[in-house]
């Protein structure tokens, strides 16, 4: 059994509920010396989550924890993730690390897990509201967007005043990550954002329009094509992730505008960094999914041993795993990492 003292989320009633749970679950499970940590990712097709899972597996093995992994069947699949949480509660997991497909809809299941005494850490995608999880370990997506926005403005220099900007978002659901990056980019570029929780409410005439890509190449290509039809003089493209950026590039190449347009993105996958090297993407904000998973597993182990909760970064409500700007064309005095160096740190 593990100790449950002195922390904010595990108090008296929880301890007795935990005992009750043990009585219901097999004695063997309670007496198990191995702690179980669950990792629930959005999907298992996106390399981002594949690498996250691999990182978690390595750390779990190091620390002698049992790791059980689950994933949604597709981006946006909430139901499978809810079932996974229930599964993990039933087997008496110590902690759950989750990248939520639907940060709002998953909250009731998360509450149930916490009431059952399970530590829940949101990874990569904060829940909505953020404090629905015990802790959050994520990229500051707003900062990531800001970084590439500032870089894009600095790169354009004087032409910033009459830039023609295309915004390629994720999907109509407007999840937290999508919104944060979008709004961060606009703020970084110097465009006034109205409600930072809403995409598309800006009035700046430099924005040609928004379209969705489903975060993949096909969607990126189609969204870019349609926006180009609206305004063939687009010269800046914000993309929510690198696969959609690659698709957008194909569309630009098809009309011969690939050199006249600057594409920025977020992610830091190795394919995306290679695209930076090859001039497909101008600059990308690199995330550290493996870090998130590693830290999450370590935090779970720490909590199960000592009951200490993971600490957020100073001044923030979550632990920021950081971003780095990957580009070969430094601008605006922003600290950058070259693509060559980026290829050593990338994931995927």
């Amino acid at each position: 059994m593990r100790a449950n003292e002195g922390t904010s989320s595990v108090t008296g009633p929880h301890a007795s509920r935990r005992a009750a749970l043990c009585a219901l679950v097999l004695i063997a499970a309670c007496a198990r010396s191995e702690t179980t940590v669950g990792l629930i990712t959005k999907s298992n097709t996106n390399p981002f989550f594949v690498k996250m899972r691999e990182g978690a597996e390595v750390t779990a093995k190091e620390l002698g924890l049992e790791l059980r992994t689950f994933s949604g069947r597709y981006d946006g699949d909430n139901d499978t993730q809810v079932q996974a949480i229930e599964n993990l509660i039933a087997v008496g997991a110590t902690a759950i690390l989750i990248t939520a497909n639907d940060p709002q809809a998953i909250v009731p299941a998360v509450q149930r897990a916490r009431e059952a005494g399970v530590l829940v850490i949101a990874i990569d995608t904060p829940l909505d509201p953020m404090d629905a999880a015990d802790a959050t370990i994520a990229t500051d997506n707003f900062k990531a967007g800001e970084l590439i926005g500032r870089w894009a403005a600095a790169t354009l220099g004087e032409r910033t005043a009459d830039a023609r900007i295309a915004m390629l978002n994720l999907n109509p659901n407007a999840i937290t990550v999508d919104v944060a990056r979008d709004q961060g980019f606009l703020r970084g570029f110097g465009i006034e954002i109205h409600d930072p929780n809403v995409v598309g409410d800006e009035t700046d005439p430099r924005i040609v329009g928004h379209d969705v890509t489903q975060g993949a190449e096909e969607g990126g290509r189609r969204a870019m094509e349609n926006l180009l039809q609206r305004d063939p003089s687009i010269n800046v493209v914000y993309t929510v992730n690198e696969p959609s950026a690659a698709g957008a590039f194909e569309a630009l190449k098809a009309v011969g505008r690939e050199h006249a347009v600057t594409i920025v993105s977020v992610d830091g996958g190795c394919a995306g960094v290679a695209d930076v090297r090859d001039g497909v993407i101008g600059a990308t904000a690199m995330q550290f999914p493996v870090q998130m998973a590693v830290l999450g597993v370590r935090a779970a182990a720490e909590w199960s041993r000592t009951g200490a909760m993971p600490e957020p970064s100073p001044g923030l409500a979550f632990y920021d795993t950081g971003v780095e700007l990957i580009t070969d064309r430094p601008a605006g005095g922003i600290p950058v990492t070259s693509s060559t160096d980026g290829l050593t740190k990338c994931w995927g």
Partner: protein
Amino acid sequence: MLELIHRFFHRNPTAAPGIVLLVAVAIFSAVAGDRFFQPFNLSLVLQQVTIIGLLGVAQTLIILTAGIDLSVGAIMVLASVVMGRLAVDFGWPPAAAVALGLAVGAACGTVNGVIVTRLRLPPFIVTLGTWNVFLALNLWYSRSQTIRSQDIESAAPLLQWTGRSMELLGARVTVGSLLMVLLFGVAWYALNWSAWGKHVYATGDNPQAAQLVGIRTNRVLLSVYAVGGVICAVAGWALIGRIGSVSPQAGLTANLDSITAVVIGGTSLFGGRGSVVGTLIGALIVGILRNGLALTGVDVLWQEFAVGLLIIIAVALDQWIRRI
């Protein structure tokens, strides 16, 4: 008057989606003007529907037999991954890689067909299962890695051949789009001018009657799934041409999109009725809708809404037409 209209549509069921298409084009031409109704944009729409159109050919054949195939997208991506890995990672001659990709498509389709005919399980259930199996194979074989467009360009440009385009009266037409139109033509011919095509319709319409006149319905079903698999692999090749890269994450909504095109095109999910031309029109309607709404700056939410509404209208219209 209503009687006349009803009779007309009963004779020419494909006219219904055809008229919807014309109306959609007319509306968007009025609202978005030159940006919409120009050769370049219209050919753009053709390119945008190429992948779904190709999958739609396969799906039409299968749905005509009162079946359905939920694994078409997965077969497409698996085939593209096979082509990419073999040509780029393992250095195979690109033509051989493409050929093997097509063979993998045929094999996957055959698996579907064999399970449906031998084990007599409903196609919905079978292809639901194989969808997951093919997806898993895809993730395993691709190791979840994307093969980048630039790498394919240097190692095996043949894989991107379907993306090559040519100028045609102000429009840009890609090889992939031409392939799609060609396959639609071949499918139309087979369904209307060959005995096999009649057998496909008969198998979907009344399988017991078909068997009683000597049609080997199991063979027909097997052929339909196998041919469908090859067409999905061709779609995989066209996918590489369109997005440039080989991505294990591609085609996630392709299954439902292909069924949408078939349904809007007037083919009945109960089998035995419909045309492959209808599917092409159905795909074009969705493409025109998305393109037109995007051009007029309408929020993306409404695109989804519009497609959903279209499906309901299409099915309701189809039911009314079928009423004798």
